């Protein structure tokens, strides 16, 4: 057990350090930029305003709101205090709704969409990758270039293609939103059905992209494994291919799990943009409207939440990896 604790402890420490760093960046980056962000925001808000005194008043109001007139350290302590209390300030664009409230509703849409999509895409992609490596030949020749092409598409590209085919042309599925606009969220069957129908296109556009990328990676991994000595030896021993392929899958899967842990941030970023195409009520669409409305507190909080989500996902994958990888399992018994 000692080995496991050390492994988890190490990962945990890294998670904390990374989060603190991300937190710092979230605070510092906008303040590091050349120029005064408050001035920029004031300038945007006061476009068309003539009176100098009015502009000055708006500027001072924003300065007070962000606390940029206080020293950096005070600002930082204030920021920490607010975030710990779950207070991300008030949204500009949906005033007086608190930012925490807006994010609280959109975050679940994103988690419920992306988590299953990433898992399903990863699983199907890896199975296809092993098949491609095992069969080589015709299947491989068709599937590989196709996978490369699909994974070359950005997630929003796949989203637009699916949108045009299935929603605009065939009219099988709705074009936008998370549920029918005429309904209010409740637990009735028609509403659940509406959510399910709206779920399909965003879900599959993310899944398809991930399948492409994972299949390519898994194929290379599996080819390496298929050439390994243990495979040749097993073949000489007359062990059935079906059994061998199971071992190959397990061994080739390990680097793929690490790969997933490293790629989760990129995947989430792409999927957020795909959400926008469908106006899915998740974080992507929230960020888009925040950008359009210059809603600074909302953007800052949303990026922090996304970072935290990605960190937790990465951490979870690494913990799972600890249970699966026999090398770490062996370390545990020491």
């Amino acid at each position, binding site marked *: 057990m000692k080995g496991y604790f050390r492994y988890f402890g190490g990962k945990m420490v*890294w998670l904390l*350090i*990374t989060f603190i*760093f*991300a937190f710092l*960046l*979230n605070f510092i*980056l*906008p303040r*590091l*930029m*050349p*120029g005064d*962000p408050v001035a*920029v925001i004031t*300038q*945007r808000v006061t476009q068309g305003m003539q009176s100098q005194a009015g502009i000055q008043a708006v500027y001072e109001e924003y300065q007070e709101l962000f606390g940029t007139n206080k020293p950096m350290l005070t600002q930082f302590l204030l920021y920490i205090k607010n975030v710990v209390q779950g207070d991300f300030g008030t949204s500009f664009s949906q005033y007086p709704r608190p930012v925490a409230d807006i994010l609280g509703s959109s975050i679940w849409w994103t988690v419920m969409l992306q988590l299953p999509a990433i898992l399903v895409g990863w699983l199907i992609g890896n199975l296809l990758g092993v098949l491609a490596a095992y069969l*080589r030949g015709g299947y491989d020749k068709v599937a590989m*270039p196709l996978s*490369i*092409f699909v*994974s*070359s*598409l*950005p997630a*929003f*590209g796949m989203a*637009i*293609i699916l*949108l*045009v085919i299935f929603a*605009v042309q065939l009219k099988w599925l709705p*074009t936008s939103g998370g549920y029918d606009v005429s309904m209010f969220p409740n637990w009735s069957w028609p509403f659940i059905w509406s959510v399910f129908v709206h779920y399909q296109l965003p879900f599959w556009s993310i899944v398809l992209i991930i399948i492409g990328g994972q299949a*390519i990676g898994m194929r*290379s991994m599996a*080819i*390496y494994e298929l050439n390994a000595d243990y495979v040749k030896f097993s073949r000489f021993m007359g062990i059935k291919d079906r059994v061998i392929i199971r071992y190959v899958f397990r061994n080739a899967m390990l680097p793929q799990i690490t790969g997933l842990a*490293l790629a989760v*941030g*990129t995947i*989430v*970023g*792409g999927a*957020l*943009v795909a959400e*926008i*195409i469908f106006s899915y009520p998740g974080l992507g669409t929230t*960020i*888009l409207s925040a*950008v*359009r409305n210059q809603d*600074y507190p909302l*953007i*800052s909080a949303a*990026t922090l939440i*996304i*970072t935290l989500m*990605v*960190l937790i996902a*990465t951490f979870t994958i690494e913990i799972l990896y600890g249970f699966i990888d026999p090398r770490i399992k062996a370390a545990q018994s020491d």
Partner: protein
Amino acid sequence: MKHTLQQVFRSPRFVIGFSIFMFIVLTVIVYPLIVRAEPLEIIGQGTFFPPGIYVNVYDSMDSPEYILHLDDAAAKRIANKLNDEDRQAIKEWLAGYGIPENEIDIQDTEKLLDQWVNNYDPTEKIPGMTNARRNYFIRLDKSLYGILATEGATVAAINPETDVLEEIDSVAQTDYVNISQVPNVRVLPLGTDNFGRDVLTELVSAIGISLIIGLVAGLIATSIGLILGLAAGYIGGLVDDVVMFFTNIFTVIPSFVLLILISFSISQEQRGAVTIAVVIGFTSWVWTARAVRAQVISLRNRDHVNLSKLSGHSTTRIILVSVLPYIASYVIMALILQISSAILAEAGLSILGLGPRTTEVPTLGLMMNWAMIYQAPALGKWWAYFPVLLVIALIAFSLNLMNTGLDQVFNPALRE
């Protein structure tokens, strides 16, 4: 070197990817030499003109007329004004009006129109018909006026001296003009966008800018990654610890988030295409640094490196002569991937509204952003978004294909 290049160009994947990429690059270079038009010039008054050849109507009246007797001209003219949907609608109206359905034949144009003209009354209220539908029929009725006429049309203009409308020309239904004799013809192979700009010209210019963004971002990211990777891998010790500390942190913090934060903080005026490229470059070096470090560590204790060390060569020289050539293929592959992902990153940022400022140059992401804001997919204006999407996919596809081709050459295990 020559041998390596030969090997690389024997890989079918690399060659296909390289050809597609070169085709795109050549298009960007050659197109502006042939079509001299400002990419962002607004030429169309209105949004989303469909692709096609636009012939000046005024000029074609003055162009020499040729008389052609074509049998199907009348049928085509009618079909253009009265499509199947309209015929079905007419049937619906007539049936609602009280004409027995077996007397209505939507294929018999003459009889159908005859029935329509004799019976249609805009004030008539058909039960169960919405107002919008009623307006549709009023429009349809107007558009059908004179559809079966066989005589030509008269062109008249006001005589400036007498202020009287005078006939200056008449156009028969059999008159044709030769398109090459009409002075003003504009070919818009991909129509116009939401601002009324020529999509093809804009697209070619956007490809160029996006490729530059990709190249700048890729070079920056690869340089940073290479330097950090070399330092961490070769020097090791404290340098390695520090570099790996930051690399590990930035691997987990999504670069997408950093991009949003930084781009949002840069004011609109300063947010040029190159600035965006630099920002993308500075947020995406992590992968290269990790990969280079791993490669260098495996090289560090090889005999030829040790020999070079024993000979008293300087660290710079050892890195340049004994390390770099061995990881060159790896670095080039990383660069190719960086270029492709930078182009995609710019597109993603632009869709969020955080791309380069919109007034100066088009980029692939900005074109995508405009098409999305003006709802081109939902309106069925495919020419405004599909070519852009296809180009993005083709650029990324060709680069990835080149990359896997190189991978096959340098990783013998992957060879077929």
